[in-house]
Every structure is written in structure tokens, then in C-alpha cells.
């Protein structure tokens, strides 16, 4: 099995004034291509730091992160941006949509950044919005959409550039349980149909059950890596 992400003795320390705060302490882990992994742990355990590092939003203080065999610390800013745009898709807890852009404009943005042909980009963005059930709300601004609808736009934006890795950070955290379930259903469906590697950060153990594998963090250390054998591609949770 091919490892798409490898953490080799990775540490991340934040400087808070005079004090150094360790967020990750020399962790080693591999994530296999096509896996659905949940990173779980209490608040302050290092989940978000790990996600930022996987997403190339930050670089480790120590150790090596190989993303598709490339050491992210050695990549230039421009190459990191390209890697983020083409390989990684983000779904955030607070949706992180650009408020002055319509749903359609938000979804097409990653393709514009990659200079994809306009006609193809428009078709693709439209298709993704239809896939998440918002075909009739393309020209709505985020403020005109409910939380669940905004998260769906966020998922459409994440998948539009066809990334290999999906990073989902507490994606149901701001939603009610029914909408949360609905969103997880969409994510699961896309994982099943599109064959992506999904890494989901959550503190909710019920959500972690959707994942194929879970990595539990505590105080910046991995304390458990578990398999959920019930979860296989093509089998609903």
C-alpha cells in the first residue's frame, strides 16, 4: 500500500512570547492513499496542528513530512501553493467561504487559481454544486445560505479541483445533528465515489466512526492508532 503522507519524528513548537509551547512531540505516522482517517483527541491535543502540517499551511519545527514523497519543508512557497491547490482540499468548521462571493464564485475560485480553462471550470463548478444539492442556489451569497448549505458549498469547493487528499476540520462542529449527519453523508458518498484520501479532524467519537482508521492524540503524542473494520469503501456506516 502506498503511503501518501508520512510523518517522520515530527515536532511542532509555537513560540508564545518567551515561552515555547510544544504542540506535537516527535510523532511518526503514515497515511495510506484512499484511506479515511479520523484524527481524534481532546482540545489542545495537537489535532489542528497536525492538520495544518498535512495541509502544507505550516511547516514542522523538527522532523520530516513527506507528502507524495516530497519533503514539504524543502518546497518553495510557490510549489507549496501549487501542492495545496492541486493535491489538497480543505473543508473547515466555520466553512471559510468568501463572504463577498456567490456560492458559484466560491466554488470556481480554486480552478481560477490553477488557471483552468474557463468553460471547463464553469461546468465543473456547476456540477459540484449540483452534486451537493445546491444547483438552484449558485448565485446566493454565503449570508443568504443556512449553515448546512454553506458547508455544502465548502465541500463543493474542496472537491472541485479534484484533489487527492481531503482535510476536514470539525466539519459538523457548527451544525445541528441532523445537518451534521447529512454533511457526513455527503462526505462519505464522495469518498466512496471519488476514491479520495480523507483526513477528518474531530473530537466527536461518533463522527470518528465514519472513518476507516483513527489516530488518537494526547498532549502532542499519538496514543492510539485504530482500525474500524466495519468501514470499507462502498459500505455505508
Amino acid at each position, binding site marked *: 500500500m502506498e503511503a501518501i503522507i508520512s510523518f517522520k519524528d515530527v515536532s511542532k513548537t509555537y513560540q508564545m512570547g518567551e515561552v515555547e509551547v510544544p504542540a506535537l512531540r516527535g510523532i511518526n505516522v503514515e497515511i495510506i492513499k484512499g484511506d479515511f482517517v479520523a484524527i481524534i483527541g481532546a482540545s489542545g491535543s495537537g489535532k489542528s496542528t497536525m492538520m*495544518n502540517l498535512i*495541509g502544507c*499551511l*505550516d511547516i514542522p519545527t523538527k522532523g520530516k513530512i513527506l507528502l507524495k514523497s516530497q519533503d514539504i519543508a524543502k518546497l518553495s*512557497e*510557490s510549489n507549496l*501553493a*501549487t501542492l*495545496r*491547490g*492541486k493535491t489538497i*482540499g*480543505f473543508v*473547515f468548521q466555520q466553512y*471559510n*467561504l*468568501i463572504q*463577498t*462571493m456567490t456560492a458559484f464564485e466560491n466554488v470556481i*475560485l*480554486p480552478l*481560477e*487559481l*490553477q*488557471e483552468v480553462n474557463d468553460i471547463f471550470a464553469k461546468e465543473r463548478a456547476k456540477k459540484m454544486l449540483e452534486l451537493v444539492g445546491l444547483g438552484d442556489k449558485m448565485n446566493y451569497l454565503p449570508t443568504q445560505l443556512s449553515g448546512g448549505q454553506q458547508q455544502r458549498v465548502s465541500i463543493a*469547493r474542496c472537491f472541485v*479541483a479534484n484533489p487527492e487528499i481531503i482535510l476536514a476540520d470539525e466539519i459538523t462542529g457548527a451544525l445541528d445533528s441532523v445537518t451534521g449527519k447529512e454533511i457526513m453523508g455527503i462526505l462519505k458518498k464522495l469518498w466512496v465515489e471519488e476514491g479520495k484520501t480523507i483526513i477528518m479532524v474531530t473530537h466527536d467519537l461518533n463522527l470518528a466512526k465514519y472513518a476507516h482508521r483513527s489516530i488518537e492524540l494526547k498532549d502532542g503524542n499519538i496514543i492510539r492508532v485504530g482500525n474500524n473494520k466495519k468501514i470499507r469503501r462502498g459500505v455505508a456506516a
Partner: protein
Amino acid sequence: MRLIKCLKHAFGMVVHSKIRSWLTILGIVIGVASVIAIMSIGAGMQQSMTDQLGGLGGDILTLTAGSSSSTSMFGGGRFSSRTSSDVATDEEPLLERTDVQVLRAIPNIEAVDTQISGNVDVNYLGKSGSIRLTGVDQKVWARITLSKIKEGRMLDSADQNVVVIGGRLAESYFDKPIGINQMITIEENVFRVVGVLDDSSTNLYMPIQMAYQMLDDKENGVYDSIIIKIKDEEILNETLVKIEAKLMLVRHVTEKTKDFSISSSADLQQTRSEMLASMNAFLLAIAAVSLIVGAVGVANTMFTSVLEKTKQIGIMKAIGARNKDIMLIFLFNAALIGLVGGIIGIIFGVILSGVLPALMGETMILRSGTFVSIDSIIIALSVSVGIGILAGFVPAYQGSKLKPVDALRYE
């Protein structure tokens, strides 16, 4: 990201922060409109001067006493005295009959007009005022002077107690207009008005012999200036050399101790052009301050915009935006503000330069109106866009360098 897309996003930023963008644009509008208006006034003044001095022709020379180094900016030494230490005598240099005789003997010279001038008290229908009087050689004055007669006639050789007056003196200086053949009192002597000039001056002209009687401090046979009309403009330089040589000989002076100066209309034009250029530079410097204020406004707006859009920058970086993309979007945003401000500023500037002559009244310097050149429009537009980009550069650079993880955390 393609440039056109960056431009689209920059345009979106302007549209979505309407009030702030328009206030910033207003700063640029004021700066550009001032520059356009000032440049148009400068061009109008230049045109006005060319019109006024163009009519002088190159065939008139003015001789005044005093060294050329102390010549006043209007080309005459009338108000100056010799100050050079190497001058042989301490006496005030004078223009006298012998100088006139020398000039008349030069074949290239067509006419020589001797003049004196000073202020006199003029009384008309019980009202009085201090008026500039010029005594002229009435036999040649009409041929040499550039003034045109509006009513009546010029002075002629038989005239004694008569005067020709400026247009404004005739029309509005006193309570009632002074008409042809009206009598006015000058230093308690009565004179008849025989002509009114077609100008807006308050000058008064009379035969030089009469003027000597009116101006107590003037000595008979001594002149303030001598106006020389040469036969052909093309022999101006040659004639000038001859005049200088002959006068130096008769006045017993050398090149170093020269106690007279000769100015032509070209000198006058150059002196005025230099004055005008200095004035334009001064006014432009004031306008430039408005532009600098506008630039500070753009920089302020861009810094605020970067701060306000920190999270958006983080989102864009997370989904694949490069530093260059962020930088270009903010730079285009600043350039757009400059461009829109520039265009509106030019429109206001053109309107302003159109109404300025009416607002300022018909002053001498703006007689030809204002003139907006294509050059000034191109310069103003380039400067406004340039200022936008320059002022937006640092904020745009800062925005582009934000770490995505920090930008995403920003609330």
C-alpha cells in the same frame, strides 16, 4: 491566477467596499483635478503672454540708463542705478540728447521715441487720483506704440495741452466716464482728452515737453527711456551691436563699465516665461501635496483592506493562491483606485479650468483662457495610477507574505 482574474477580484474588492473606496478615490480626484487645473492655467497664461508679446514684434528695443546687471525683470533699468564698483563716476547714469542724436545717426533705425514717466494727481469732476503719466515724443509715438486707439486720435506734432488716456481711466476710474474733448486737471493744469486707447490701463500720455512741466523731478533733456524702432526685424542683432558700440563710444564706457541696457521684446518674453515657469513650479508643488495626501489615503485604505481581508487571504492561500496572486490582486485594487480617481479628477480638472477664468475675472494673465493639453491628461493619469500602485505596494506585499496558518486564524 491569470491577470484578468486578478483584475476581476480587484474590481470586486473596490465594488464591495464602496464607501471606503470612494473616499479614497475622492482624495485622488482632488489631487488630479488640482494638477489639471493648475497646468491648464499655466498653459493659458503662457498663451496669453505669447498673444500679448507676440504683437510686439522684434523690431522694438528699449534703452534705459543703468548697467544690464541691474536691469529689472521687465527689461528696463529705469528703476535702478549703477552699483558696480568699477564704474568711473558715482553720478547717476542718464539718457540725454546726445544719446538720441547718436541713435538717429544709425541708418538701421527708423524712429526714436524719448519718454519720461512719473505719477501725477489728476482731477476730474471733483474726484482725484494718482495716475501714471508718460511723456512721449508725439511726433513718433503713434508709429512706435503698440497701443491702438479706440476713440479720438493719437497725439500729433502740433499738440500742446492734450492727452491720450487708457481705456479703464476713461471708462471707470472716476465716477463718470471721460469722453473725447473732455477737460481734466493734471497738477492744476487743464488738459483736453483727444484720444482713448483700446486697452484696460489707467495710463496717461502727453507730449514730453508738457510732461517735463508736470513732473517736477524730471530735468529737461534727460529721459527715463528711449524706445527704438528698427527698420527690419531681421537686422535686430546687427543693429543692437551697432547701437551698443556707438553709445559706449559717446558715453565713454567700456563693456565692463557699461551704464546702459537695451532690452528687446524677446528678452521681455524670456524673462516673463522664466517667471511663469517658476510660478507654475510653485503651484504644481502645491498640487503635488494634494496628490501626496491622496497617496497616503490609498496606502491607508490598502493597509485597512489587507487587515480586513486577512482571513480571506488565508482562505485563498489554503485553496492554492500563490503570494504573487495575492500581491497582484491588491496592487490591481490600488491601481484601480488610482485610475478611477485619475479619470474623475481629469473630468473635474477640465471643468474647473473651464470655469476658472470666469471665477477669477478677466485678469491680464488669463485673457486667453485656460488650456488643457493632452500631455497634462496623460501625465495626470499616469501619475494617479502610479501613485495608486506605489502606495498599494507595501500593503500588498505584506498581505502576500502572510503565513496561511496565521491568516486563517485571524478573526
